[in-house]
């Protein structure tokens, strides 16, 4: 067994969670846009091992669902029709990680569609939509955080390294951005941009919008680190032997900001996933039929859905393990920040 300590354990958990979402095509039994009008708002199906006669089956199975007589949205299990769950079945075509065309899914059934987490108004599989929706939400969060950190580090390092009036100006702008109510700023920015756009355009618009508002906090943190780093004696000593600004930034100053940047990244990703969800929830995100966690939750805006179909809340539950993972990673990184690891390189001279 490999012993993992502190933040590495959290990182592993996050990587596994992201791996599942990244390979949504494999873990999801169906295409997220594939409709089944016969089964709208079907509740999550039960998976059985023991049938109505009390016989045990090694292969899990489920019963086909049919509308209850005299009802328009109540389903019941059809006890005569046991459908076995099959693993590694061939089904809808998908591109694994957007590259490799595949048809194999982790599980599925032959005679009927299986809805582990229920279906939505159009009979689309909720599990598939949550998995695919995660791709959009998480990617938007990560790219948004990346963009924010890029802007934040550039501005923070510039302000801290140059100092003087440039520092003052940049930090006043940062304070202005921190004082702005970011949700309404997002609305304003989004309103300013064209409303009807393709899903891909909408996706990148969201990333731009959320990436552009959050840079102030990382910029201030990076500035603080750079400010103290550039005054260190070894930085002055390096200047004394003729080091250039780019050398000092590269070798002495920016490496000191790495722990702040990593911690900020772990805090910002979930924050920006939430921002994407908020925008999509309000209909300003990636349009239908492409799922994202926010647009999946958008159906809850209808009162009838809100009170009748509890499984429509599940996308909100899906974000919980991700957020826990990221926040755990952030605090583990913070604890680790003080203890700088010395990396040994194998073979040859060590420098």
């Amino acid at each position: 067994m490999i012993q993992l300590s502190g933040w590495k354990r959290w990182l592993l958990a996050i990587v596994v969670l992201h791996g599942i979402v990244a390979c949504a095509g494999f873990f999801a039994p169906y295409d997220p846009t594939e409709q089944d009008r016969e089964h709208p708002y079907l509740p999550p199906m039960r998976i059985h091992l023991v049938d109505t006669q009390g016989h045990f089956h090694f292969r899990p199975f489920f019963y086909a669902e049919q509308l209850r007589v005299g009802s328009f949205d109540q389903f019941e299990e059809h006890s005569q029709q046991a459908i076995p769950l099959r693993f590694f079945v061939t089904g809808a075509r998908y591109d694994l990680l957007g590259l490799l065309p595949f048809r194999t899914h982790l599980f599925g059934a032959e005679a009927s569609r299986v809805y582990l987490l229920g279906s939505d108004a159009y009979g689309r599989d909720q599990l598939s939509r949550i998995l695919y929706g995660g791709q959009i939400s998480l990617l938007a969060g990560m790219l948004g955080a990346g963009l924010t950190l890029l802007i934040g580090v550039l501005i923070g390092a510039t302000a801290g390294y140059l100092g003087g009036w440039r520092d003052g100006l940049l930090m006043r702008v940062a304070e202005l951005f921190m004082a702005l109510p970011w949700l309404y700023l997002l609305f304003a920015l989004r309103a300013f941009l064209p409303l009807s756009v393709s899903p891909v355009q909408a996706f990148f618009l969201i990333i731009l919008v959320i990436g552009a508002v959050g840079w102030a906090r990382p910029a201030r943190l990076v500035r603080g680190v750079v400010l103290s780093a550039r005054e260190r004696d070894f930085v002055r000593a390096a200047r004394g032997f003729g080091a250039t600004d780019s050398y000092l930034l590269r070798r002495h100053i920016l490496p000191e900001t790495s722990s702040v940047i990593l911690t900020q990244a772990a805090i910002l990703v979930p924050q920006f996933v939430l921002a994407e969800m908020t925008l999509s929830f309000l209909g300003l995100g990636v349009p239908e039929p492409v799922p994202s966690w926010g647009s999946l939750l958008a159906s809850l805006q209808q009162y009838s859905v809100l009170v009748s179909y509890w499984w429509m809340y599940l996308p909100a539950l899906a974000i919980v393990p991700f957020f826990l993972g990221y926040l755990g990673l952030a605090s583990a990184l913070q604890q680790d920040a003080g203890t700088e690891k010395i990396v040994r390189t194998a073979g040859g001279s060590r420098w």
Partner: protein
Amino acid sequence: MISLLQVQDLHVAYISGAGKVSPALEGVSFDVLPGETLGVLGESGSGKSTLALALVRLLPGNAEIQKGAIQFEGQDLLRARPRALERVRGARIGLVFQEPSLALHPTIRIGKQVSDVLAAHEAASRAARHQKTLQLLREVFPADASRIADSYPHQLSGGQQQRVLIAQAIACGPSLIIADEPTASLDPTTQQEILELFRMLREKFNLSLILITHNPPLLAGLADRVLVLYAGKVVEIGPTEQVLGSPQHPYTHALMQSVPPGLDEPAKDRKSRLRVIPGEAPNLAVLMNGCRFESRCTDRMEQCAEREPPAVAMSEVHAVSCFKYGE
């Protein structure tokens, strides 16, 4: 002989956030000949570290060089562009700082830190730099250069760290080394070793050396000439034996009186109380007309408080700024 470094009428002041000006160096002039060692002697606050940093234009942001000229190898460093200064620092002028443990990056191996100096100035291949680094480290660590190269700064003693700084300073074959209190944080035995190393390297590479210290005995036997700095002014400059042996300026005289007697002197002399200079160094932010040392001087005269004493040549090589002489 043409001097290597010529400093003329250098004025440096620190400016506080409120715009208050505190002069740190006023009208400092001296020169350094090729191969010569100049000792700069002064107490804390006399401006000796400011002088070291001003010579290579590394003063902190709140310091301002008000006027003067620093001629080094044919260029005026005060009028040089930042790029040109980067080519002088490290390559032509090597610096050795007083706190070696702080002057080395804590997480980069020694070898890398020395070869980075070479990389800053020479377009040599990695392998060539590697070779040259080991060669440099052998100059300062004859026995175990390659082990030191693989170490991190925290694995070395203070004296070893200072040797690494010296290796960095001589890396690119400079003509001048400025050492600001290079032995201040070291114990007496190590101090002697480091001074011995300076003496050896000076001969071997024909270096000029500016050795800044507050401790007169360190300069004896190492410095060719001594410059005594008091409150930002040069009070006396001349050959080491003359300045330390028969000091002419009342401040230098008082300073030499306050040096503790060596262990080789009779025990009864050591029992007596150490002499100190009464009073304290003046606050330079307050404007003064007369001699800076006037308030503490035992030989003060009427005119001392009224105007500044000019530098008086005692001989061709020895000058003193005091009204006791001249006229």
